[in-house]
């Protein structure tokens, strides 16, 4: 918990964006540790796989692609504090008033349904049992959605007409290796930026 709070504070106080993203990863890891400690193993692993494995890495890539110039003085943190106070107090209030009976309700649900506590092997086994039997149709539909994503990525990025009307995109190693990516940033070669081949 303390680890998570410290990481979250470092996320907003880090000077370089890349460090902020690294602290964000650290915060995600601490949150997943909290999940695992309270018994939600599946949620913890999903936090790691989805947030750390995919989203934070995506952030890192975007950060690296951005041109990081000189640091400008951003908004002073004093301006953000009132908003942060409001949000934080709101969250604390919800946690203090609502958390108790929400928790009671959840434990009651778990007892009545035997969902998380009752299964041997924890929630991963329970979810696996349900997903592959009762919800198998849903599982198949998810696979269709992934297929749409794949087809869509190909359809949207497939270029027509560069190598002829029906020729697919080809790799050209010579053009790729001779691209001028190490040039001085002030002398950007517009030709090399405009063409992606």
């Amino acid at each position: 918990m303390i680890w998570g709070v410290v990481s979250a504070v470092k996320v907003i106080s880090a000077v370089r964006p890349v460090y902020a993203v690294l602290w964000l990863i650290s915060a995600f890891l601490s949150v997943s540790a909290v999940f695992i400690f309270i018994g939600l193993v599946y949620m913890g692993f999903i936090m790691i796989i989805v947030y750390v494995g995919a989203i934070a890495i995506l952030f890192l890539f975007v950060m690296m692609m951005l041109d990081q110039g000189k640091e400008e003085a951003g908004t002073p943190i004093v301006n953000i504090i009132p908003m942060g106070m409001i949000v934080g107090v709101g969250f604390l209030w919800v946690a203090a008033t609502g958390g108790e009976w929400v928790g009671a309700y959840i434990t009651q649900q778990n007892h009545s349904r035997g969902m998380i506590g009752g299964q041997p092997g924890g929630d991963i086994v329970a979810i696996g049992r349900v997903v592959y039997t009762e919800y198998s149709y849903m599982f198949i539909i998810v696979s269709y959605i992934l297929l749409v994503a794949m087809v869509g990525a190909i359809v949207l990025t497939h270029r027509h007409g560069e190598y002829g009307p029906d020729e697919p995109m080809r790799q050209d190693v010579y053009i790729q290796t001779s691209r001028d990516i190490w040039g001085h940033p002030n002398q950007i070669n517009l030709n090399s930026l405009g063409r992606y081949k």
Partner: protein
Amino acid sequence: MYSEMMLGGGVLGVILYGVYRPMYRWSVMVLLVYTGGLVGGYATADYCGFVKEAKDSLYMVGDNEWVWVLQIIAGIGLIGIVLMGERRGVELVLMMGLGTVLLIASVNWLSIYLAMELQTLSLFILVALKRESAYSTEAGLKYFVLGAISTGLFLLGCAMIYGGSGEMSVLAGNTISETINQWLIRGGVGKALITISLLFKISAAPFHMWAPDVYEGAPTITTALLATVPKIGVFAILVQIGSLSNIVFISATMSMIWGALGALNQSKIKRLLAYSGIGHMGFVIFGAGMGTMESIQASLIYMAIYVAMSVCVFSIILTINERRGLVADFHSLSRKNAILGGSLALVFLSIAGVPPLSGFLSKWFILWAGVSNGYYLICVGAVLSSVVAGVYYVRIVQMTYADFQGELAREGPIDIKRSILIGSTLYLVLFILICPNFLLQVTYDAAVGLWVHV
């Protein structure tokens, strides 16, 4: 369930062999077989005692008349869209159709969410298909962001309902108020969020802001697709979950008024049709919100006739094939091609609701249901806004027939598939008022099936 499995397998086959050659004909065949199977199954089933206890009916049902009839309408709409003749991205159209028929058949929040995602994700790609046009890219991005927002609202509502009731059937929301008083407000909020998200998808008025831009930027066939098929699926769900009627009524009234006023100033035909679609959706969800059997039957009739009219209008627009897409492109169409101009005029008069045509029939049923349920004020608003909306439809007709300017070049021959589409939908538009019994019987069965299965 078997029909969806068949369509899913067909889609997979089309994609698999589409790697080697374009599978346009095969996708038409898949859709024809699917819809034909549905129609055949529906016609041969003894649909008075047809509802049976399906084993998997907890998560997906394909087994009542409501689902069947709506799937048939969606299948016919899909055939229309595919026959309009875009070869590129036809597998995505099939995927979207699969999402729509699954959405119609689902009775579980999880399956509704997944089917809606399948449908919407395919539409994002189809909207952004014209990559060289900045409008298309902008439309795709805008649709993507707003679709993501509405999906977020939907998931939040689902989470609230699931937290309140602990089950994922669509009927779960109704049991909340009876069992757990503490969660009453949260259950209501969840239902409201889900309703708002569905209104987003159907482009009803306070949540319509994406529609004109997306309609204008998308390729015309995708616009035709957006205007017809996904709305059928979302409408089916909006009726099935028993949405909060107050929100639906407010949205319906605003849609009718805004659809009438917003289109007055438009010069692009696709933007005009987007606002017209908003107005029509106002009528449809007005009937759905009333929640009686007559009103839902009336909305279903409205939806079916709206799909037929939209397919006809978009086929004509594609046939004219003006690059600018202005309303002014229709001028002197009756001189260039008298039959095409005549069909355009008739369809627009039907959309406006002029009596001998089918658009009048659907508006009449909705207003009838509204008056007999006592919603007088909304009915007066509906009549007034359809009078206002009549102005711009009749302006197009006037432009087709009376506004001669420029050269009178003869059009070339029309594509055979499009002319079949225009002819058959125009037949429905013209003659359904003479003998509406078939449509009435089918929609009556569908509305009854909605009551029996829950």
